């Protein structure tokens, strides 16, 4: 994330804060999906970053064909979700009984496949996803100058969080999800179609990641390694926030996004250090994360 290097007090801090929250928004889109999938299905999806990458590259393709970023945002997640649901149906489903180790290994294998497929189709060079006209440029609040796209990301992230909350707390499907998160066995017993629910949740999770990739495109740049670039911080967020906790994902995304950005700004040599250190400290004091429930 490019940081505006004006070390003039307020302006600098405000810019970094905006960058940090924008990064946090991306992390939330990733970690929310990860936490949902883990919380409901007790599945660890190491390939989650791959869907972030796929979403970004599908968006690139759509923008190339139609020139419209908004269209891309609206539909780029569809093929990604399709791939995700296929992955869940054909492969992951068989490993529910086998536990986390095998899920980690399987999805880890898929990261190799996805990254080389992307390399095959789009090449290894860094591609650009242009920022749409309306969102380019800056807005000035007195001395403080903030990039419009960052503000868009923050708003987008917040809106997604709100909609997700609404969906889970207020809708019938959401109630079924929460029942399933609580106790999938009993949920099945009272008539909830758990396999279908699992497919929906997995699709929702990777869909969020794909959308994240699309909106991240303009500021991160697209390249085959971007899956791991976002996956590690996303897992750090999930582990800090507590695996399976959406609230934890929200809080930790903001936390990690801001800390990482300020860390990069003030200690550019030790960028990732700070975030790793943060995770180490949290895990050693609260092994289940900030809001974790400790599902082994």
């Amino acid at each position, binding site marked *: 994330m490019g940081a505006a290097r004006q070390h003039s007090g307020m302006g600098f801090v405000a810019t970094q804060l905006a960058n940090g929250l924008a990064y946090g928004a991306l992390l939330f889109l990733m970690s929310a999906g990860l936490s949902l999938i883990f919380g409901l299905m007790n599945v*660890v999806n190491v390939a989650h970053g791959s869907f972030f990458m796929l979403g970004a590259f599908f968006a690139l393709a759509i923008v190339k064909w139609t020139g419209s970023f908004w269209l891309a945002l609206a539909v780029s997640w569809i093929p990604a979700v399709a791939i995700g649901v296929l992955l869940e149906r054909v*492969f992951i489903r*068989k*490993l529910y009984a*086998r536990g*986390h*180790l*095998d899920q*980690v*290994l*399987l999805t*880890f*294998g*898929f*990261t*190799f*496949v996805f*990254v*080389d*497929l992307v*390399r*095959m189709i789009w090449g290894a060079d860094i591609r650009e996803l242009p920022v749409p006209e309306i969102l380019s440029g800056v807005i000035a609040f007195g001395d403080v100058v903030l990039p419009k796209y960052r503000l868009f990301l923050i708003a987008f992230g917040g809106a997604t969080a709100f909609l997700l909350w609404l969906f889970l707390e207020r809708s019938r499907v959401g109630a079924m999800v929460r029942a399933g998160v609580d106790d999938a066995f009993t949920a099945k017993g009272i008539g909830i179609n758990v396999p279908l629910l699992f497919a929906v949740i997995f699709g929702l999770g990777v869909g969020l990641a794909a959308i994240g990739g699309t909106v991240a495109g303009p500021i991160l740049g697209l390249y085959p390694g971007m899956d791991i670039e976002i996956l*590690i911080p996303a*897992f*750090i967020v*999930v*582990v800090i926030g507590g*695996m399976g906790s959406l609230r934890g994902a929200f809080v930790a995304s903001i936390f990690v996004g801001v800390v990482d950005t300020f860390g990069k700004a003030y200690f550019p*040599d*030790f960028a*990732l*250090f700070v975030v*790793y250190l943060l*995770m*180490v400290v949290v*895990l*050693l004091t609260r*092994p289940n*994360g900030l809001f974790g429930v400790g599902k*082994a």
Partner: protein
Amino acid sequence: MTAPDATGAASTAASAATAAGARIRRAVAWLVLIAVLALLPLSGSYATGLAAEVLIFAIFAMSLDLLIGYTGLLSFGHAAFFGVAAYAVVILGLNFGWSGWVGLLVGIVVSAAVAAVIGFFAIRVSGIPFLMLTMAFAQLLFSLSIKWRTVTGGTDGLSGFQRPTLFGISLDNRAVQFYVVAVGFLFVLLFLRRLIASPLGSIFIGIRENEQRMRAAGYPVQRFKLVAFTLAGALAGVGGGLYALQNAYVSSDILHWSLSGDAIIMVILGGTGTIVGPAIGAAVFLLLKNVVSSHTEYWLLWVGIIFILCVMFLPQGIWGWVRQRWAGTRA
């Protein structure tokens, strides 16, 4: 995963005969292995170099299996211990003129120490948090190696290391290099065999099989996890030290988490919970990599596909599958 059972039946004559039969089979296997290794350098410089690389990574993978297959700990930061030892050999050689042999010993000790420190913190958590913590610590070392260019040479690495001599012959000689590595491999193999059959080994197995039961039986499980972690680190250090002697070069790549990922693939491909499995996995993985990358630049894709198929259909790994067939065909 089948656990090797140390309490063999020895009371009846029939089982004594099978025990003797098993001993003979084992002895033959060892002889064949030693013979193959002794004759390998005759097959040319390329094959010898490749074989040495396989043996080095076999050591690396076998050490990781002590964690994954025997104590049930999935670590994603094992490259740290491999790399630290390699750096120790090269740095001590370049800066202080210390012989590679001394460097090797120091490297193993340093790896063990680093493992003990990282392990002390990492074993407080388990599952995904453990995976992330081990990866985080390893990545911290990786970042350090890149930043600290003056000492580590950063991404360019350190070259110019002088290999030591063995009985007057320099290790620059490919064949001698190979024999050194081969001896190291046999030593690690022998050590692991004895370890698994020993009281300590049975405790590791017990922890993998049922941690709660081990606690209820009176074992301080956390202490043993730390011991396993440290031992695994020391053994990885053997591999790393030999890597330095073999290549006379080290760069920060050796600490990257992708090396840890490669090791995990080798272990799973070969078969966890078996001593030989990871060595087989290392051979298959490296051979595959060599063959595939000479035909296409998309070898990650193929590694991924094979790995996926292995996880789905061959969870016991290649060696695990072979052993099952073996056990099935005997009376």
